[in-house]
Structure formats: structure tokens, C-alpha cells
């Protein structure tokens, strides 16, 4: 239902052109969940915000960029075109519920707003729907909560409200951009379960973004791994976990905190820092940090190509194959 082809989102800044998303393509089918994983700064947020036109005016899209949604092209450069899908067909949940809710509007007003605008409901109807929505995202005492302001709610409740807002108009695609990153660990799972349940109930497609491979492990049908504005590995979830080929994906894997590890084991993080997107390194962008890098890696860029059964990766010396040395 969603086809993204050669998405390039570049920011024209004083420092130069920031190639935040640099040639990303993928497809997403109805009812499926795509997990997008990558370190902070790899372009996940810019990618999804591009789809909804939620970027500042310094963002420019590449000429070959084409987006299709439900069989029709979607012009992401046009506010009018975007407003046809925003809120109705595609909805979004943001990372930080502390900042994504309007502090001066009641919870109810923020939910009923889209109901009234898109569905033309009257005040009373919208309010009833809002109560039902709040109830359905697991907030107790919905009738009281509806008249409260965001600052009167905890972070977890706020994110539930944000989800309720996103679900209000029954979207076909829900984008959740790190919906649990800002939340207390104890409630992260609850929120993710809520999203999964709603997705199943409403038969929505979902893009679930995270920097933590562990989060998407049981919840996504497919996983795309992003690095420096590009997708570097892509596979059905089970496949990926069974056979990860990119050294970067593996590094991400190793960075997942493990419950079975003895306490005080230092987390294995990836050495080095993500590259400067104004002047990305030549060849493979991961090369400066890659333990398997060879001279070929810096000379030639590896294409995103396939192994079997839809497993694609961009690496000259994939894990599980002997290196050049």
C-alpha cells in the first residue's frame, strides 16, 4: 500500500547540504509492520516526517523521489495533497509525549479536533467518540481525563493520549517514531503491546521506529536497518535475526541490553560516531567504523542486494562469509 522509491531528503543549511535521507526505497503492504532500526541520527525521523511533510522549509526532496500510497502517487511536496492523507489515512505518534501534546489544550479538545474536522462530528458526538478512544487506549476514568490538560497526566498516559489522537480517524497506516524512547522502561512494553493490539484490531499497517533492535524483535514483520541516511539491510524479521549480514546490524544486535547478562556488564556499544552527513565518507558509509572494512569498502559503494527470500543487504564482506584478508 505504501511504496517509497528513492527518497532523498536534504537540508540546505549554512554548513552545506545535510543528506539526512539519501536514496531510501521500500514497500509496505496492508496490515504489515515495518520496523526501522538505526542509531540516533541515522535519518529515521527525517524519513518518516518526509512522508507526512512535517519538516522545516529547509528540507528539499530529490528529483527522483516518488511515493505511492494505496495505488496512487502521493505528492509530498504539496500541502494540499498531504492534507488528504494526514490524520485520516496516515497518522503518527511522536517520540516525546511531553512535547507532542499541546500544553494549553485539553486532552479532549485535541482528540475531538480531528473528529470534528475530518469526520464532521458535532461537539457531543465527538466527545463520546473521544471518551471511547481514551477508554480503548487503556486510560482509566476517561470522562474525567478528557477535560484535563497534558501536564496533569503522566508520560505513559500522555503517550496513550497521543495514540488515541492518532487512531481517532481510523488510519490505514500508523507511524510510530520511537514511541517508547522517552518513557519509563516499566511501561515501554505496555505501550508497544497497546500499539500491536490496536494494529491487529484495526488492520492497520504500521511503521515502528526504534534505535533498539530488541524492541522490534517480536513486533515487526519486516525490519529495515538504517545507517547514515540509507537502508543498509532489510529482511523479514525472523530471517534477519537468524542470519544478519551487515556488520552494522550485528553491532546493533550486540548493543541490546540483555536480561540474562550479569549485572554491571558494560553495554557493548558501537565504537566511533556516525558520519557527517554533509560530507559522507566515500564507498561504504560504515567503513570508518567497520571491523571488516577493506580498501574496496572505501573505494566502492556496496549496493543493497539480495540474498534469498527478500533478504537484502549492502556489504562487500557480509558476516558469515570469509573476509578479503
Amino acid at each position, binding site marked *: 500500500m505504501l511504496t517509497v522509491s528513492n527518497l532523498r531528503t536534504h537540508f540546505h543549511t549554512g554548513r552545506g547540504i545535510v543528506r539526512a535521507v539519501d536514496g531510501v526505497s521500500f514497500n509496505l503492504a496492508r496490515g504489515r509492520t515495518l520496523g526501522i532500526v538505526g542509531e540516533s541520527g541515522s535519518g529515521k525521523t527525517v524519513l518518516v516526517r518526509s512522508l507526512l511533510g512535517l519538516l522545516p522549509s529547509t528540507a528539499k526532496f530529490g528529483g527522483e523521489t516518488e511515493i505511492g500510497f494505496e495505488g496512487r502517487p502521493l505528492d509530498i511536496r504539496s500541502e494540499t495533497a498531504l492534507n488528504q492523507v494526514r490524520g485520516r489515512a496516515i497518522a503518527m505518534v511522536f517520540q*516525546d509525549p511531553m512535547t507532542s501534546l499541546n500544553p494549553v489544550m485539553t486532552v479532549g479538545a485535541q482528540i475531538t479536533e480531528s473528529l470534528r474536522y475530518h469526520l464532521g462530528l458535532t461537539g457531543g458526538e465527538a466527545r463520546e467518540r473521544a471518551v471511547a478512544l481514551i477508554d480503548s487506549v487503556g486510560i482509566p476514568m476517561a470522562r474525567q481525563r478528557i477535560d484535563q490538560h497534558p501536564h496533569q497526566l503522566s508520560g505513559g498516559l500522555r503517550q496513550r493520549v497521543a495514540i488515541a489522537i492518532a487512531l481517532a480517524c481510523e488510519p490505514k497506516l500508523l507511524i510510530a517514531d520511537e514511541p517508547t524512547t522517552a518513557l519509563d522502561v516499566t511501561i515501554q512494553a505496555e505501550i508497544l503491546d497497546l500499539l500491536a493490539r490496536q494494529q491487529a484490531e484495526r488492520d492497520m499497517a504500521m511503521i515502528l521506529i526504534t534505535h533498539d533492535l530488541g524492541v522490534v524483535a517480536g513486533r515487526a514483520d519486516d525490519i529495515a536497518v538504517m545507517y547514515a541516511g540509507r537502508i543498509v539491510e532489510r529482511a523479514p524479521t525472523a530471517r534477519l535475526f537468524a542470519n544478519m549480514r551487515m556488520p552494522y546490524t550485528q553491532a546493533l544486535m550486540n548493543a541490546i541490553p540483555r536480561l540474562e547478562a550479569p549485572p554491571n556488564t558494560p553495554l557493548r556499544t558501537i565504537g566511533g560516531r556516525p558520519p557527517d552527513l554533509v560530507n559522507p565518507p566515500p564507498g561504504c558509509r560504515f567503513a570508518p567504523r567497520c571491523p571488516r572494512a577493506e580498501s574496496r569498502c572505501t573505494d566502492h559503494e556496496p549496493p543493497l542486494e539480495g540474498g534469498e527470500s527478500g533478504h537484502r543487504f549492502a556489504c562487500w564482506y557480509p558476516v558469515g562469509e570469509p573476509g578479503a584478508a
Partner: protein
Amino acid sequence: MAKFVTLKLLRLIGVVFAVSALTFVMVAMLPADIAYDIAGQDATPAQIEAIRAELGLDQNVLVRYGHWLMSLAQGDMGRSFRSDEPVLDAIWSRLPVTIELLVLSQVFALLLAIPAGVYCAYRAGSRFDRVLGSTGFGMISVPTFVLAIVLIYLFALRLEWLPATGYEPFSEGVWANLRTFVLPSLSIALVEWVPLMRTLRSDMIATLKEDFISMAKAKGLPAWRILTRHALRPSSFTLITILGLQIGGLIGGALIIETIFALPGIGRLLINAIYARDYMIVQGCILFIAVGYVVINFVVDMLYVALDPRIRTAGAGG
């Protein structure tokens, strides 16, 4: 809430006390006194001394201030030395004029500033934004009286739509009354909308970067609705502060406009009284201005509370 009001009231009394004592001393320190005004140019030094004795001006400042305070405590603000008019009457008759001028000028200023500020923030850096920015800069550097004269020339003399000067009270009809306030209020508004527009614009630009604005966009709401429903209120805190300051400054400071347009407001009363050293009137005006300031402060605080629910609950909790 009761505690809040009591606190404000106590502060008001303190402010009034300090301000009135200070003005009393300052007026007393000015060279010459009301006797020279009262006596006119055709008086002898002996007569001036006689007037001074009659009015008690030969007494010590502190004694006079004491008398004034005592009378005030009994609810008597005294009479003008000059016209013998009771101070309270003089102020009471001018207060509606001053208040109407304040309110209308700020309403006009907001009518200009809000749409302009919102639009400039929405299209920051656009041609419109830059043109408006430099227009605002130009307008703020035009002295009010020049603007006033230009407006009179255009609307009173050329187009003959509005009267050049004068004041009609509400009792003469709403339109008759409003007509006399349009040009004076515009003269003030055309200068004062600029800082309002600028603060709104810059606060709004900051607000528009907020996540909740992206959220509103993601809901598929049209731009105007996002700007007015989502962005305006959280962007208007500094605006309210500036508005409060401007109104405060205008209570006694609309002098030039009141003089040019012959509006019988507090500013003109005060300045004439200062020139004449008519300290009973001066004290009365200062008293009202001080109260006005405190009231405006209070209103501004209340507006913050109305605009920002976060303050409301904090207040309710404490």
C-alpha cells in the same frame, strides 16, 4: 485565590504609599510653586506670599504630605488649587476617556499585530515578512504626533470622515463616541502594534518548531487552524507582558495624543497640573495611575493563568 488577592492589595497599598510620597517630595522640589501660577503675571511679590500662606504652601513638605494623607484616609482627595474642582471629580470625569483610549488603541494594535505577527511567523523570511518588518521599523521611528497630524489631514480634512479633534461621551451615542476615538487610537496603535507584532512573530516562530505543531499538522488540520488554535495561545505570553507594559505607560503617558486630539484624559490633567504645581491634582492622578498599574499587573497575571493551564493548576495546588 483570596491569599493572592490580599497579597496584591497589600502590594498596592505599599506602592501607593511610596509613589505618593515620592511625587509629593518631587513636586515640592520643583522650582516655584502653585502660587506663581495662581497669581498670574500681574501680581506683586506681596500678593504671592499671601496666596502661599493662604494655601499653606509655606509649611514644611512633610507636614503637607501628612495633611494630604490624613484627608485621603478620610476619603477626601482635596480640591485643585487652581480651579477649585474636587480632585476626585476631575479624575473621575477623565478616567473614561483614558480607559477608552487605552482599550481602543490596544485593540487596534492587536488587530494589526496578531494577523501580521502570525502570518510573518508562518512565512518567516518571505517577501511579505521582510516588507512588513521594515514597515514596522519605519512606523516605530515616526513620532506619534506626526502620525496624528497625517491621520487628521487624511481622514478629517481630505476625506472628512472623522472629526479632527474633540471628545463625545458615550451618552451622546456609541457611534458619536467611537468616531472621536478612532484617529487618536489609531495614532497610538500604528506605533504600538510594531513591538507586539515582533514579539508575537518571534515567539510564534519558536512555537511553530514545537512537536505539538507537527502533531497538529499530522492531524491534517489546515494551516490557519493550526496557527490560530494551536500556535497562537502558547505564543502570546510575551505579547501579554508587552501589552501590559504599553497600557501601563499609556495611563499617564498618552499626553501628546490627548493634547493633539483634545481628549480630556488623565495625561493632560497630570501634565497641566505638574506645570502649575497643582500638587493636589498631581497626587490624585499619581494615585490613580499607581492603582491602574497594579490593576493591569493583576489583569496580566490573570491572563497568564487563563492562557496557560499549567500556571492554573500550580496556583490551585498552592
